[in-house]
């Protein structure tokens, strides 16, 4: 039972880390690339807020994933 739980925790943790990394990369692209902002119809005034939310979610997701992967027995 414990090994199944560990497997699921590591799997979900890994997915969360990947989601967090992808979100952080996307946040950087939105911040750095004018063409991406234009294609997503993000106004320059809104870009700081969007990047802020994406970075917060990305950091939270990576952190949560790491907590699950390193779950104490």
């Amino acid at each position: 039972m414990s090994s199944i739980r560990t497997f699921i925790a590591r799997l979900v943790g890994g997915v969360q880390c990947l989601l967090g990394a992808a979100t952080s990369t996307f946040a950087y692209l939105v911040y750095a690339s004018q063409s991406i902002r234009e294609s997503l119809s993000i106004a320059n005034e809104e870009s700081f807020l969007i990047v802020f939310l994406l970075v917060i979610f990305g950091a939270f997701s990576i952190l949560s994933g790491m907590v699950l992967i390193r779950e104490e027995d």
Partner: protein
Amino acid sequence: MEKQMSGQRLKRELGLLHATMMGIGGAICAGVFVTLGYAATLAGTALIIAMVFCGIINLFTMLSYAELGAALPSAGGEYTFAKASFGGFFSFATGWFEWISNMFYAAFSAVGFAYLMSYVIPAINVPIIAIITIAIFAAINVKGMKETGITQTVLVLVLLALLGVFIAIGLFTNRALGTFELSAPGGFLGVFRASAFIFVVYLGGEAIAVAQAEIKDPGKTIPKAIILTCLILILVYTLIAYVVFRIVSPESLSGQASPLAYVAKQFMGEIGVGIITVAGIIAAFSSVNTSIMAQSRVAYALARDGYFPKSFFNLHRRYFTPYIAVLVGSIFVAAFAATGVVNFVTYATDFGFIIGFIFVNLSLIKLRRDKPSLIRPFKVPLYPLTPILGIVTSLLLIFFLEPGTLVIGAELFLFGLLIYYIRMVGYHRLCLAMGGMNLGVSAFSALFAYLIMSTPSTITSSSGTTFLLFALASLVSVTCLIAGVLNITVHSSGD
């Protein structure tokens, strides 16, 4: 391999000259070579008044640094002061802002140096040159504080000599406009706006306080070095502004990429441009050196108190420097420099340094009240007026910063809060908190997925994008739901 040995400490190797050069080199960055043009359009020739005004504002807070640095001469600067006066999250936040500000400042200076080099040698790759510069100064900082201090002293003396040539020739040249007249087209508000804009040229002098654990006879040397730094900066910047307006009108500086180089060209020709370019390169160089040193000492102090990993507290067996803190910080600096996010790091640097100013003045007031018997080799004159003026003027500067700076500052604050929380709470409480947040994100993502499918046209017109967003929101919702349940049940299953 290198282990922290018992009794090993940072060595006190910096005298008054080295400490003063550390402060001046930290402050005179590439900024002064580029900010004068826009500031002149705001304040006219009254920019000279703005320069003196900024110097006095800087002096208010630097006097607080002098008192606290002489009374508490251990590594960490602002962080150490906040730790002694407030402790807890307040001191961690001070150290956190100080650490990231110095890393961003090092990245900004390294990129600035690389850009200046690219004017001289157009074929060079800016990020690679920036990374090489950071690597060189990281090696110097690992080698020892004495080497760092000597490098800084040589760089700053050459820089001051070059600026001295510019000022001396500018004061006596016959290629001037004529009689200098003080004018402020924007009135008092224009002078104040210019002050807020150019204040950055005074930031960085507090590096003396960060290195205070390595300064000889700190009770006397730290106050002298800080006050000397402030006075020399006021003198140099005011003379530069005077020479600029003696040679050209404020209007002619508008739109100049390098106003100082433009002015130098007017009365010294191409040689003047060369002198100012070399001075800019050296200024950027010395700023990289100072900020790599400063970030490592702050990280060292944070590790000493358990906020950062213990390995940051390790000293090199032979050189007695916090080599892991230097190297890890330098890797971050290189990453920031390589990505080229110069605007971001500039914003973050300004915000972090000004927050540090406020915290230092608050720490001074708190310590005067709570620990009146603390031995203070130097005392701030006109207390409590001086630190209060330091706080008020710093708050005013924050008010005049770009809105983007405040958003980035808030983000950095939240990151700091998160790290503090993770370090301070127990594992099971952390799991419970993460579980709650995961369930909240899961519910929000499920609601978002439902809204996408129920009203697709309000979010996107493409059916393919609608499906992709729905799938992504569902994935996040399910993942966070499982993660939340696992987090919340970890305590009972663990027992």
